[in-house]
């Protein structure tokens, strides 16, 4: 990829009536990454994707893809020419057959990959004569994925790609995606609320909650930085305001203080020692822990 940053948003906002679906989202997706966009249902993931693809206009802020403004009509067409997209509902044309869907989509993309089309038709066991209407949800997902992968796109945007699929089908779809990305130079931006699948294939992650990004970075870096530090005291835990950098959460219960740090444990542990705890336990956080601590705890 020529671009160092493929997707970039700055203070992006989208309001629908009284509801603010996206509230000042700032995000950077590096070229060549598999970027997991995690969030609960209604967090603003789909709205963000619609803003990136020009399906909705932002109420404020800026969204750029391939360094082109997503909100401008002509730029948006240029962005979509280089982007493969699979929507959450896998909405395709029910009145077409599999073959008609392909014959309709292919000419719109100058870099359409006929070799991949044949490969995925075989691999996904899609019958060209079958109508889209008669496809199961899993087969519909496979067709939507085929139509996105064969575009010769530089960027793949997937909105909850495994939504509604059984575990076996989910695994099959994810494996196809991983194998494809490994052989083609492309960036993948996919939204999900399934932490396990993000952890399985993503190398970068952003967690969105109530329309803003609460955590973002390389997955390995996040695992390296996020720590749970538990302090146990021989009497009630002291009321102490921690000033160390990276302290995200503090929970005090009886003789125990639990802290979540996004900057390792060193500074917090040093500060904690001044309180003379009986013990200091430091444990790394999984992506699931980070998600739960940053999103669920916000309630």
């Amino acid at each position, binding site marked *: 990829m020529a671009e160092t940053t493929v997707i970039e948003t700055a203070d992006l906002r989208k309001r629908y009536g009284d509801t603010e679906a996206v509230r000042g989202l700032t995000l950077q997706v590096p070229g060549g990454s598999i970027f997991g966009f995690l969030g609960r249902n209604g967090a603003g993931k789909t709205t963000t994707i*619609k803003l990136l693809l*020009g*399906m909705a206009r932002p109420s404020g802020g800026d969204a750029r893809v391939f360094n082109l403004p997503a909100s401008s009509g002509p730029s948006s067409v240029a962005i979509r020419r280089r982007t493969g997209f699979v*929507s959450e509902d896998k*909405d395709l044309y*029910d009145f077409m057959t599999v073959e008609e869907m392909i014959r309709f989509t292919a000419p*719109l993309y100058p870099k359409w990959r006929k070799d991949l089309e044949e490969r995925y038709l075989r691999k996904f066991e899609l019958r060209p004569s079958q109508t889209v209407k008669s496809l199961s949800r899993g087969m519909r997902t496979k067709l939507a994925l085929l139509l996105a992968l064969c575009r010769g796109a530089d960027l793949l945007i997937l909105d909850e790609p495994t939504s509604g699929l059984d575990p076996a089908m989910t695994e099959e779809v994810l494996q196809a995606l991983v194998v494809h990305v490994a052989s083609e130079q492309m960036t993948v931006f996919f939204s999900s609320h399934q932490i396990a699948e993000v952890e399985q294939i993503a190398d970068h992650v952003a967690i969105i909650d109530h329309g803003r990004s609460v955590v973002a970075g390389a997955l390995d870096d996040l695992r390296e930085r996020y720590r749970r530090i538990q302090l146990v005291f021989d009497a009630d835990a002291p009321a102490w305001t921690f000033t160390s950098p990276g302290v995200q959460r503090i929970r005090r219960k009886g003789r125990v203080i639990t802290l979540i740090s996004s900057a390792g444990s060193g500074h917090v542990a040093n500060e904690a020692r001044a309180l003379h705890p009986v013990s200091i336990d430091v444990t790394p956080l999984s992506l699931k822990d980070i998600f739960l601590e940053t999103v669920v705890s916000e309630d």
Partner: protein
Amino acid sequence: MLWYKSWLETRWRFFIGLGLFMLSAGGVIYAYPQVMKLIPRASDLDMSGALGQRIKDAVELSRDYRGYVWGQWTRQNLTQFTTLFAIILGSGGPYSQRSELFTLSLPVSRQRLVGVRSMAGLGELLVIVVVSSLMIPLLSPSVGQSYGVGNALVHALCAFVAGAAFFSLATLLSTSFSDIWRPLLIACSVAAVLWVVEQVARGFSPYSIFTVMNGETYFRSGRLPWVGLLASTGLSAAMLYGAAANIERRDF
């Protein structure tokens, strides 16, 4: 390929419309001998009141073959079916098939999508109207009559140009609603109201869109309803422009 999609999307409406129009045209031709047998008996009917006046009018028109075709086919079936199918073909549109996100993800501007869909729909309407109208000169010799191809084409074009206003209305409504039914029902209601106004206020009749559609001035005096045709074209263009502007600013 957008033409291909529009065709696949509307082909059944097109075929059903074409079939119905052709059956209707054939029915009018083959009913002619029976109608001729009934004409002498019409003098026994009570022709007082508004209904009687209409029967009298129909009987008078039917005394000559061109008048019969205009009264039975052009003024009734062609005008009514064109209105209905213009609305049916204009309803729906590229953004109301529960597949809007796939369509919007394509590297095509929204205006082009609306433009292609509209042109495809209008093209289908034109084919339906012209082909079915040409059935009249084609089938007339089978009942011992003749009918000019030029006449058939002029009436078909009047029906198409004025009918395009209903197509454009349905297209405009389809860009405001996400389902197919509301645009269909609202456009049909507008057509019904215009028809009722024409029937109740007879003085309004010369200015009615249905009078433009049936080409009454051409039938009676050989003059094309230019003002009506131009007004219909302008109205259609304005509504299609409105549809494109509507879809351009809409959030999905």
